[in-house]
């Protein structure tokens, strides 16, 4: 730990854990980290925080030169104050050039605290990173103004801290690096003023894993409407391995659909093979979540709906008649 080569630029990737394994989001982050590291002739480091994390740590070794294992009983569950303190101590020790984190709800809580402790700025929800050759500054591309404007921000004070949007890079498949595990033990104070009373797990939704998504919006008025979408989903299962239900904000705010299914600025960002938007007008705050979709089909009764401007196929009319006919035909052919 004390003989780290200080001259070597380090890109520190904060690892997302999943069922003891390395998840695909982490592999995307490691891929982006590798590109940035190559530009600065540096190395990729992983940071794994938690308790009982040796499997995850091992899983990162093929992709990173150094893997920092921060295994501590107090880090068993995500507690933002403790995670921020552990990462701050790691950053002081390792002095990374850049810290990359996934743009998850937990990290939206963690990253700003880390940045403030390190007295630097950060850019959240980036889709692309590049080193400015002349200056070595980090250029961070990010959709802004509800995805109407794409902005490239410059970070000039290290560590550059960014959170990255899911599905903006291909996950690494194979790694050939034989990384080194470095154990790091932070000094943690377990007392927090914020007391967890109860954790309520809602249905586990993995919209990012769906090959096809059928999403409903303001046009869907009730559970009967939702049923029609669900029937379309089951018809599509003939063609896609995984098909799931998504929603734009009006259905979340009216509690017809839980917020874990929200797609858009404040929800998931998805990039499926097929996205069918039903009764969604196409506000930019929704569209920012589906920009990566390969094909977009829009069904809406207003010919003026903005969704048609970003769709590959459009059907104008009432979904209540169109969707059942589509579903029936999909089953037949």
């Amino acid at each position, binding site marked *: 730990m004390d003989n780290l080569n200080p001259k070597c630029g380090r890109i520190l990737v904060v690892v997302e854990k999943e069922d003891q394994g390395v998840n695909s989001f982490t592999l995307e982050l490691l891929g982006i980290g590798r590109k940035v590291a190559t530009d600065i002739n540096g190395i990729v480091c992983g940071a794994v925080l938690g308790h009982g994390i040796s499997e995850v740590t091992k899983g990162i070794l093929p992709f990173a030169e150094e893997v920092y294992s921060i295994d501590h009983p107090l880090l068993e569950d995500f507690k933002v104050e403790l995670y921020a303190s552990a990462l701050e101590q790691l950053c002081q020790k390792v002095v990374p050039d850049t810290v990359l984190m996934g743009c*998850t709800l937990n990290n939206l*809580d963690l*990253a700003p605290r880390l940045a403030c402790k390190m007295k630097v700025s950060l850019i959240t929800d980036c889709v692309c990173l590049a080193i400015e050759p002349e200056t070595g500054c980090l250029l961070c591309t990010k959709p802004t*103004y509800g995805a109407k404007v794409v902005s490239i921000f410059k970070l000039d004070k290290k560590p550059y801290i960014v959170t990255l949007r899911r599905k903006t890079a291909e996950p690494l498949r194979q790694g050939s690096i034989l990384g080194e595990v470095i154990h790091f033990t932070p000094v943690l104070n377990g007392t927090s003023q914020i007391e967890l009373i109860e954790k*309520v797990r809602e249905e586990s939704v993995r919209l990012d894993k769906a090959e096809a998504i059928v999403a409903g919006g303001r046009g869907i008025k009730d559970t009967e409407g939702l049923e029609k979408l669900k029937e379309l989903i089951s018809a599509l299962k003939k063609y896609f391995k995984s098909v799931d239900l998504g929603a734009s904000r009006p259905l979340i*705010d009216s509690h017809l659909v839980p*917020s874990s299914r929200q797609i858009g*600025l404040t929800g998931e960002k998805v990039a499926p093979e097929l996205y069918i938007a039903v009764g969604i007008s196409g506000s930019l705050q929704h569209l920012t979540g589906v920009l990566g979709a390969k094909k977009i*089909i829009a069904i809406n009764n207003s010919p003026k709906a903005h969704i048609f401007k970003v769709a590959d196929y459009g059907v104008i009319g009432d979904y209540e008649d169109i969707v059942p006919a*589509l579903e029936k035909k999909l089953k037949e052919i």
Partner: protein
Amino acid sequence: MNSLQIIVCVKQVPDPEGPVDAFQVDPNKKKVIPIGIPPLINPFDENALEAALRIKDCYGAKVIVISMGEKLAQPVLKKALAAGADDLILLMDPCFKDIDSWSTAYVLSRAIKKMEKYDLILTGRQASDWDFGVTGLFIAEMLQIPAINLARKVEIKDGNVWVEKLCDDGYEIVKAPMPVLITVSNELGELRYTSVRSLQSANKRLVTIYRANDIDLDFQNLTTRKIHNLFLFNDKRQCKFIEGESLQEKGEKLALAMKTDGII
């Protein structure tokens, strides 16, 4: 018990639901130029104000709304008074022009420090212009008070704050003593309706205006947002409209087109 004092931080932004072509960029000045759309209170900050007003309704509280900017439109921000806020403080100074999130949080935290008492600070989860989502948490770090991110419900019980906060696989119910900062998400609900009459009478009310010199700022701490480049997003696809005599026929034809074009 002393009455609760709640501070709500709000930002003035161009209407995020404005039409797409209302947003232009000036690549030389590296600025976004909204054309023909009015400014309003950032919708997520309205969620935060609604959270504050619900607490005021249930337990009684003084709600102080605070906003910062180079130039602020009073009639826009006075909507907060019309909705039920007790005071409006505007931090206006030319030196606040284009400052970054860190500096914004710094200015707001200096102004909040000047207040004799605060129990709760509420902010929206992010602003609908730059969509960073960091200012609230920065303010908490600077004031060295605990923070709870992404609340969908905020209540007061036995002198503590109880919050339902969003997390990656559901939500958590947490409790904290005050003072505490909470960022509020849209799930909490929209700001209550404000009538024309209440807007008119709010318009006549006085607001407190502070300049940079009034709030003990170290001007070296003010840094501007570093924008390298800006461009309009363009993902226009060629939309192929499916025609048909009836809606049923359109639905069937869509299925066939999906098959022919190799989507399924």
